[in-house]
């Protein structure tokens, strides 16, 4: 095509044309192969040939076509039954410690059952979606939902997602104030407290909410977006508890001032330079980098710090007004569970004193029962507030979205 090229040019040209062809042919072939793979993929369980019954779609999860062929067709009389426990990912997989592996080994060594973890990315919302899509639940127990999750579940679904807990050993050992389900489905297995963590070499955190508005703490606090982060939400709830949600609201603030609500407090906090970042990770990264000396986090921070050999002076805990917002985590049996009896045995197992101690240490949280066996040094590092506060199911019902969207509109209005 061109008229002024050298021999090498021609050679290179031929070569590059050759590569181009190979590149294209490769693309075409791969496309065809993948297409074929895809359509083959689409066949799935034909478990039911009549209408959409409730327990038809067991095989969905293994649409991968691989591994776990479940044994629930004959509801497993001779075979070892499988208990599917759904939870959030860090419960079974975290860079430091997580209870998943220990719990599985311990449970399997004591019960004639196989424990299988399921950790869908959308967590409890995944099961709400499954229920709404009539896709079958495909799990026996859910471990790790909060009061607020339960409120959302009940708002979204007409039928119960969870069954009543029923007869669970150790339920009477659960500490006062942690039981959060008025319908007795949820059984708490641990709790966390959301507090302030501060660098003692940089500042001395204030002891009250008002103290955070002092000039000396201007720009000192990093919090998280209550719409996307559990710690951010808990801290927002704590301010609602403290200051109330206004004259038309449902919560009377502990400050006793009806004219000053949580939004007024947040306006003052914003004037004093609070930073509200996205996730807990964002906030903790910025705090660790020295952007500000105080961060909203968990009261177990020193457990991690001691474990990593860090200076505890840089990881001080402050409970504002001697309080912290408690975030109990619950577990419950799915109403659709294939193995309801085994699921309840698992929940009793989770409340045993030794297991409670292990869960608390490995999930870096606090046990739900007062019979838990915990080493003294853990109790020293993991600090509990003298006055834990939290909202009940009834208080949260119908209020949460409004609290959050009112806060969003005030904070981000531009």
């Amino acid at each position: 095509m061109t008229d002024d090229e050298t021999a090498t040019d021609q050679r290179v040209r031929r070569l590059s044309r050759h590569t181009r062809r190979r590149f294209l042919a490769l693309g075409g072939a791969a496309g065809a192969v993948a297409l074929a793979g895809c359509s083959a993929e689409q066949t799935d369980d034909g478990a039911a040939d009549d209408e959409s019954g409730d327990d038809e779609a067991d095989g969905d999860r293994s649409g991968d076509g691989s591994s776990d062929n479940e044994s629930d067709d004959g509801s497993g009389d001779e075979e070892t039954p499988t208990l599917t426990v759904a939870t959030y990912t860090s419960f079974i997989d975290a860079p430091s410690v997580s209870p998943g592996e220990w719990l599985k080994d311990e449970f399997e060594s004591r019960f004639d059952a196989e424990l299988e973890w399921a950790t869908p990315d959308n967590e409890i919302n995944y099961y709400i979606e499954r229920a709404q899509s009539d896709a079958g639940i495909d799990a026996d127990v859910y471990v790790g939902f909060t009061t607020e999750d339960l409120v959302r579940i009940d708002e979204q679904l007409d039928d119960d997602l969870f069954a009543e807990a029923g007869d669970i050993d150790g339920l009477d050992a659960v500490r006062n104030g942690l039981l959060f389900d008025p319908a007795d489905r949820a059984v708490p297995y641990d709790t966390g407290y959301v507090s302030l963590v501060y660098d003692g070499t940089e500042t001395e955190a204030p002891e009250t909410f008002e103290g955070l508005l002092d000039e000396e703490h201007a720009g000192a606090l990093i919090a998280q977006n209550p719409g996307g982060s559990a710690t951010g939400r808990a801290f927002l709830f704590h301010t609602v508890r403290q200051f109330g949600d206004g004259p038309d609201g449902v919560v009377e603030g502990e400050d006793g001032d009806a004219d000053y609500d949580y939004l007024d407090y947040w306006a003052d906090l914003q004037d004093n330079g609070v930073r509200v970042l996205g996730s807990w990770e964002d906030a903790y990264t910025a705090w660790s980098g020295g952007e500000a000396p105080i961060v909203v986090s968990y009261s177990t921070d020193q457990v991690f710090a001691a474990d990593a050999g860090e200076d505890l002076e840089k990881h001080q805990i402050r409970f504002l007004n001697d309080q912290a917002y408690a975030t109990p985590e619950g577990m419950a049996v799915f109403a659709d569970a294939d193995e309801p009896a085994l699921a309840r045995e698992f929940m009793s197992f989770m409340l045993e004193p030794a297991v409670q101690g292990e869960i608390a240490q490995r999930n870096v949280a606090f046990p739900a029962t007062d019979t838990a066996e915990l080493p003294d040094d853990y109790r020293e590092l993991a600090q509990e507030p003298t006055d834990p506060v939290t909202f009940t199911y009834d208080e949260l019902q119908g209020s949460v979205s409004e609290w959050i969207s009112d806060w969003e509109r005030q904070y981000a209005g531009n």
Partner: protein
Amino acid sequence: MSDGPHGPHGRGGRGRIRRSLRDRLEGRLLTLLAVATSAALVVAFYYPVGTVLVEAVRVDGAVTLGVFAEILRDPFYFGELARLFAGESPIAVARDLASPDRRLGIVGFTAYQAALSTAASVALGLPAAYLLARFEFPGRRTLRSLTIVPFVLPSIMVAVGFVATFGRNGTLNAVLGALGLPPVDLLFTLEAIVIAHAFYNAPLVARVTTAAWESVDARAVETARSLGAGPLRAFYDVVAPQLYPAVLTGAALTFVFTFGTFPIVLALGGFQLATIEVFIYRLVRDLSYAEAAALAIIELVISLGVLLAYLRYEARNTVRSRGARPLPRKPLFPAASTARQILPRVGLAAYFVVAGVIFLAPIASMILASVTGADGALTLEHYRFLLDRQQTGAAFQVRPWPAIRNSLLFATGATLFALPMGVVVAVLTTRRYRGRKLVDAAAMAPLAVSGIVVGLGLLRGLVFGIEVAGWRVTVAGSVAIVLAHAIAGYPFVVRTVAPGLEGLDRSLIESARALGASRARVIRDVELPLVWPAVVAGAAFAFAISIGEFTATVVLATSADAYTMPVAIERFIGRRLGPATAMGVVLLVVTGLSFVVIERLGGEHRGL
């Protein structure tokens, strides 16, 4: 696709039958590919996303536009414009818009920061394209391959790098302090977000523009020069018009990405700078689907509107070209030094300083963070963690090696899928027919739909599947992931390839057709070779999109052995960031090497 015309075939009757069969297949190939592409898009994109978006207009079983009306009239979302939608006089609204204390609303602010980010990305991307396309220096091809690396980094890695570089105690302030200059407080400002967006998207602008620059035909420039035009004049009249479409491609894509930006805004800016996607995310999480879907549609319409405007411009401003013998590159370090040679190089040197601060320093900080222990001393413990996790991790936990392997497999698969898909759509949308720009814009939708909405749609449409005659058909696992990644990546192939195809001289194609070549053959042997640098750039982007993809992967991965590197990074984030950053550096190295390999496979462009 069959092999080339070389070799001794076509002898005797059987050969002739085979050849005619092949010709017929080839003749239909374009149609087949187009049908397959449409089917893939419907199954793994339009239908799943539709299941979510429909919730905006179907509330409690009734069809309504009420949700939209409410959002449009809400000053929180639309600022002063909301009053226009509420029926106020346009003059009063315009007057208030011109006043300094106007309200932008969330949507207005999102567009504003996206426009700033686009300007910054173009400003930072063009000098890089100039350097890569016009100068020769050792390591040029490797550098060109590596430009896309920032594109794949998870936001937490960028946050780590930015805090360490631009933070109060960061590298930048240390340098400023050493120079006796006052410190800057960059973090938690709009500037921080704009710089972070430029970090992600300037490479995109640079890579797309480089590909176009490398396709500029030297003969046209030589002709202009021989007719007496000076080098600047020749640039403005000949080269620049061939670059505008590419620069605008980069700008339009950057706008769309930064318009739908999510985690990085809250990580480096804060909630006072929240964008639409932040609210969509929260509403989806709280299962408030009607409002979430309505916002997602508004976001989509604005993004597609921008793309459509760009596509119309592109169609009107294409420069015909007949071939590509690229301009010869100049040595970066010339032997003799005249003023004309020194000036651009001084400019590039200044650019190096800026690029060093914005691109290299954050990446260097990430690497440094991966080898720094809790006590601040250098350590390899985080990498030992990766090895340890590999050896002792439980079957249900994410381990580094499977994550690396899956990332590479999925990305290779997705790229090989995305290439034919993208080329077919590029060919179809550069044909002349009414409404083709609308088709083109609709084909770009995977870039513009809210990520969280796509995730939810894939869950409903593919993982839960649909019931057909008592069978529940589901698509999940590795194949579905590859498909979802290909769909996310193919628009890049379209956008890099289409401007070049549009600019091709039709007479070349017509002569080839007249000589008996099938349409598919013409594309393969005539059109694609002429725009080859763009094809390779598109392939690299498709690969990058797959490597960096997170949402669809976690939704579709049905077992622990289908996870990828970004998922591993997210899993390894703990209170200490060491393990996650170590995995991030693994991602950095693996993708960097992959890009080098892709560009080598693609070959250096030497014209037709």
